[in-house]
């Protein structure tokens, strides 16, 4: 993995930034690699489109923004529509299939799981983002499940790590079932 560019997106309030933070922390702090997270802030906190850019790299990240994302993590239909075109050909879409219906003509590899539905089953709708982290971790193998678990424990408010981890494990299960669907291309992006 030289450099992987990821767009995480959804409604404000779904926790997509947090999902990006957890994956970034897993790579940078728990695994000792590098990860740059940028978030776009809007004046409205909730309900509007919200997105984060995450770059995972073995080396120090110099240019800190996306050029052609390798992976789009989408948690809403609007966000999917807005950002799908920036994904490079052969890229991957990781999506919440309870909320996003991908374009049937898309050539992207896709990995979906009903993250919001699963989160509701766990009893906390706001845990959908941790289901997505699990799904991402299992399907892409870009960070190890151990690193992701440590990142969750060290990031979420005290007393909530169990339920967050439970959501993560459900997502991870779905993701691992689809592991190998897609692999990061080997050549480094400049």
């Amino acid at each position: 993995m030289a450099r992987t560019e990821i767009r995480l997106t959804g409604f404000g309030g779904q926790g997509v930034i947090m999902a990006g933070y957890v994956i970034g922390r897993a790579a940078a702090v728990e695994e000792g690699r590098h990860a740059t997270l940028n978030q776009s802030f809007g004046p409205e906190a909730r309900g509007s489109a919200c997105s984060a850019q995450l770059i995972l790299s073995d080396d120090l990240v110099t240019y800190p923004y996306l050029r052609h994302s390798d992976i789009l993590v989408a948690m809403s239909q609007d966000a999917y529509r807005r950002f799908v075109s920036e994904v490079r050909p052969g890229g991957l879409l990781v999506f919440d299939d309870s909320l996003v219906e991908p374009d049937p003509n898309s050539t992207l590899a896709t990995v979906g799981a009903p993250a919001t539905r699963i989160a509701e089953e766990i009893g906390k709708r706001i845990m959908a983002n941790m289901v997505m982290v699990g799904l991402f971790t299992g399907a892409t193998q870009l960070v190890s499940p151990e690193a992701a678990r440590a990142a969750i424990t060290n990031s979420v408010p005290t007393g909530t790590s169990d339920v967050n981890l439970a959501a993560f494990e459900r997502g991870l299960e779905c993701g691992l079932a689809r592991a190998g669907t897609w692999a990061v291309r080997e050549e480094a992006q400049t």
Partner: protein
Amino acid sequence: MQAEASGVLTGTHYLDGDHAFAEGALAAGCRFFACYPITPSTEIAERTARRFPPMGGVFIQMEDEMAAMAAVLGAVWGGAKAMTCTSGPGFSLMMENLGLGIMMETPCVLVNVQRAGPSTGLPTMVGQADVMQARWGSHGDYEIIALAPNSPQECFDLAIEAFNLSERYRVPTLVMMDECVGHMTEKVVIPEPEEIEVRPREFTTKKPGDYLPYATNGNLVPEMVAAGQGHRIHSTGLTHDERGYPDMTVAAQDVLVRRLMNKITTNSADIIRVESDSLEGADVVVVSYGITSRVARAAILKAREEGHAVGELRLVTIWPFAENLIRELAGKVRGFVVPEINLGQIALEVERCAAGRARTICVPHAGGSVHDPERIYEAIVEVMS
């Protein structure tokens, strides 16, 4: 002197630039923080408010930015290391007491997490258009120190550097962050306290009566003091003599203002930090700072791949300006490319120092986002043509 352990969060963290800066300030010994909330600097204040109470720090959210800056100056004269943070509109309001800080020679740190202006502009989106305001924004002649971090790690590191420089030169030190760096999250490694070099305040060891608050004894920077130490000092924003007494004469003005400027300019080699790559043999040098230095990197790599000899110069210290280095390079290169998120500010300085011996091409951006690296690449190619 090493950092006081209670302020140092040793370990590897995943922090944005604002949070990292707050940690750097705590490690540097900052124990007084006054502010007024403004996007995109607020996270610095929020983290400090949370971190201070167990370590005896004083956090106060003032009624406006003028008050915040004034309170910082008061706290320094009370003996604390102190800082404030703000963004464009607040930076404008702080200019008044920045001047007082310069005149009273008050060591403190002021962070401007730059957004796009003028006025309210784009409150949540990046700008770098306050760099000339940093240099010239308060009235009267002065020299200032301004640093520009380009990563959260550097926000931590330069917070400490800013406090150390302000103590060394008794001048408010500005940290001209930008929204992108402030809100960018990366790995931040905080060392052990004993590995962090913190410059303590140099209080006078003279006895009350022997001490003159603005006597420099030839080294340009007077010894510091705090209220309550028995010296019964007077300090004023008026032109003053060595006793700190107002002295409204042309002669006193000349002595004071020249010293305030000389203490920075004659030490600029000690103050200025740049980061450079491949300057030797370069045909064109890209001069940048803050987030734009990382954006320019993409353009530089692309140009190099196509065989252009492109040097890279990043201004870690914006003020005082690295003019000797630019002058020296101007005799060797064909031109400078200066991308910045404004319509040409540091480019003017580069042009001034190049003095016609090399071309200067500004790559302007009105603000709200970083440059498309392609625009910087095109400017590099333009110099080469």
